[in-house]
């Protein structure tokens, strides 16, 4: 770490115009975030007050957590379209566990798991759905796009089936069943921040270490960059890919839990089209859809750009249609800049060589 800093200061000692250009392009997501926040702060005076920032972060957390799972998938050169549906299914599973419990008619009993058990069971279901994605992709050689598209329908179907299309409302549990407390996940705060924001931070931190410091993370980058080379280097590609989709499933289930708890209700359409926002956050964060390039930090900042943009436009009273247009332009614009950066790097490499 300290060595990294040393090289950075060394670089700073002979900054050239090129370096600054590069820095701006590299940190462009962050720059975009600062610009977006500044613009909204100027246009709407209440924008920067703490309460508003916390509300925005709460909204961002949902997409950031999905984006974290999606980052793993996209780094491995895959795609996960089933994210939104797994969010919905998880919400319904959690709601059902609290309101109806686990019914075992043959024994004539109904088990009501406590709030912690509900959370754990739901997360396990999310992981299982991801594992199915991964197995279909690796064992049956189905393209990730198709495999997860199938799962998009299947999970959404199960979400509807769970309660025949109806909502589980008022999922707070009953004291006599000992299963109260699920609503706290969405409503409580710690040090002034909502649990969902803390969850985002913890997930983000863990994911950061996994991608940068664990052999597993290195394997994900390697197989996204060149699957054959990774396999010949001894990376267990099938296993790694499956785990990647399990992580995405886990993140989706977490988001399902947060939403169900925040609303104190589970609706089967929860999370509809969330996968697209998650992909947008990842791409905006500088992760290449070809795989092998990108970072968790970028995704979280990308999620913030999208979140702040949505909320800011709402605060300023833009119509939902206009909001969509602006978001679309921002997403495509980000990728355009990506391409420009690649072109610039080539030019810079040339200039550097001429200097020599």
């Amino acid at each position, binding site marked *: *770490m300290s*060595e990294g800093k040393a*090289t950075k200061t060394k670089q700073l000692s002979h900054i050239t115009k090129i370096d600054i250009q590069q820095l701006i392009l590299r940190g462009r997501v962050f720059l975009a975030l600062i610009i977006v926040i500044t613009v909204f702060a100027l246009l709407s005076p209440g924008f920067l007050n703490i309460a508003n920032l916390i509300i925005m972060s709460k909204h961002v957390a949902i997409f950031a957590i999905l984006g974290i799972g999606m980052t793993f998938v996209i780094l491995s050169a895959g795609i996960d379209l089933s994210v939104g549906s797994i969010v919905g299914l998880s919400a319904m599973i959690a709601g059902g566990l609290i309101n109806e419990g686990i019914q075992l008619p043959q024994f004539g009993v109904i088990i009501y798991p406590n709030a912690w058990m509900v959370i754990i069971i739901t997360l396990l279901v999310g992981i299982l759905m991801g594992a199915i994605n991964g197995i279909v992709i690796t064992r049956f050689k189905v393209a990730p796009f198709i495999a997860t598209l199938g799962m998009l329908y299947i999970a959404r179907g199960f979400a509807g089936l769970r309660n025949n299309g109806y909502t589980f409302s008022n999922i707070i549990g009953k004291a006599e069943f000992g299963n109260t407390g699920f609503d706290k996940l969405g409503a409580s705060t710690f040090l002034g921040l909502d649990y969902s924001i803390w969850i985002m931070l913890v997930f983000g931190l863990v994911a950061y*270490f996994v991608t940068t*410091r*664990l*052999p597993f993370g*290195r*394997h994900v*980058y*390697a197989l*996204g*960059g*060149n699957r*054959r*080379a*990774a*396999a*010949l*280097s*001894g*990376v*267990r590609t099938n296993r790694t890919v499956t785990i990647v989709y399990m992580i995405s499933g886990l993140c989706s289930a977490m988001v399902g839990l947060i939403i169900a708890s925040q609303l104190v209700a589970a609706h089967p359409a929860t999370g509809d089209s969330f996968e697209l926002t998650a992909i947008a956050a990842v791409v905006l964060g500088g992760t*290449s859809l070809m*795989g*092998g*390039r990108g970072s968790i930090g970028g995704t979280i900042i990308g999620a913030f750009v999208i979140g702040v943009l949505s909320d800011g436009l709402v605060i300023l009273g833009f119509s939902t249609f206009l909001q969509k247009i602006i978001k679309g332009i921002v997403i495509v614009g980000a990728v355009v800049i990506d391409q420009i950066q690649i072109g610039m*790097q*080539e030019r810079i*490499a*040339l200039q550097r*060589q001429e200097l020599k």
Partner: protein
Amino acid sequence: MIKSSTVNNLSYPDTGVIMRTENITKVFPGTVALNQVNYKIYKGKINVLVGENGAGKSTLMKILVGNEQYTKGRVILEGEDIHVRSPQDASRHGISIIYQELDLCPNMSIAENIFLAREVVHNGIIDKKMQQHLAHGLIQRLEHKINPSTLVGDLRIGAQQIVAIAKALSQNAQILVMDEPTSALNTAEVKVLFRLIYELKSKGITIVYISHKLDEILQIGDCITVLRDGSIVAEEAVKNVDMHWIIEKMIGRKLEALFTHKEHKIGETLFRVEDITLPRVGGGYVVNHASFDLHKGEILGIYGLKGAGRSEMFECLIGANPRATGKIWLGDQDIGGYTTLKRIQAGLVLVPEDRQRDGLVLTLSVAHNMILASLKKYLDRFGLFLVSNKEKKAVNASIKELSIRVADPKNPVVSLSGGNQQKVVVAKGLLTSPKVLMLDEPTRGIDVGAKHEIFEIMEDLAEQGYGVLFVSSELKEILAMSDRILVMSKGTITGEFTREEANEAKLIDALVLGNGLKNKNVNNKQEVK
């Protein structure tokens, strides 16, 4: 670096230059592919362009036909500056190229291929009859009889070449670039092609002929240009040169100085392979019951042509092909049933032939590529996190040991030259602490200096007691480097020679054997042993 000014100018009094480049420079991130190249193409001649892999031939051609843009310089066609921005642009200027891997669509007919993207239309609808007619005319002009509605996929490779040439002619090509046109042809087809080339020449078409088959060049060329390391080092009339001249110019030194061979002690058997077999889809074998052994400190060369099953055999040995059968021992350990990961852990390592496709993750840095196969070694004491100090130590040690020229190991691996990229792949293998190193065409596409270094590394490794197994299709390389030589042909090992008894003629004889009858094969194999 060789200054381009040292090139002695050759002038043809009877003919002019139709096209030339002036100080063309092409820079890729990390490498200068072409350095101030002044290339001249003589009108109505067969202009031969030679150079080693990576010398910049393909880049130069891609620039001439608009597939690649130059960084600096000018291109001048018949006295006028031109900017060729795309292949369409090039064909408008009368420049066409026939690529080594013919760029034809096998699922479409000859006529459709010839007029692809320039369809003959009548009221917006493709005029199929007209296309067929025109295509027929073109093919006839080339003195061939093929039905233009035949699917290209159904044609033999030689006939496909005719189609590619017809396609170029249909664009009124004045300059026709042929990139390794004979690499997929047999001798008879080469003769046909040469006759065709002479005909085109007699019709006033200028040919640029890229090849590394020196005998062909001497046979067909009018003038020759030699590229080395991105610069033109020589230009001469073909009648004034011989094979030695070409080789010397291409590699920049006498051939003998390239190789090093030290005496090293050969120990006990380290690696034993029995009956490695890989069936071919649709009958026969890709690898046909191959058996051999490798000793400690030995360099075992495997000579064979591309497609002889050499690379496939290596893939079977490393466990990358589930359909392979056979027995493999490393020391006393039977590793036949192991996964790739376990084989690597047991001490086997593969440096694949195509480093960009199989060896490197191009999106990752030099350092991350190097340690990819040995990540477990750099974990903390809980076996959980990677320790960057340990990584750095290993990476820096490797860079020093193999003298890899890299400014910062954090740079992307694509920024290195081919030779240094190859060394990164070797370093990746060595960091897994192997006992046996399998190198598949380790010198493919790298410059001479790097070749020399790779050979030195191989010698050093053998001296340290590693078993080194290497594949090459270059006779000289195999003869100079190996302690023992196996010849592989059509999936079968057809000969085995010690360093002392091997010579070019014997190796080629063994190579030819594989193409003969199967039963003959077995007899001769016994004889050889």
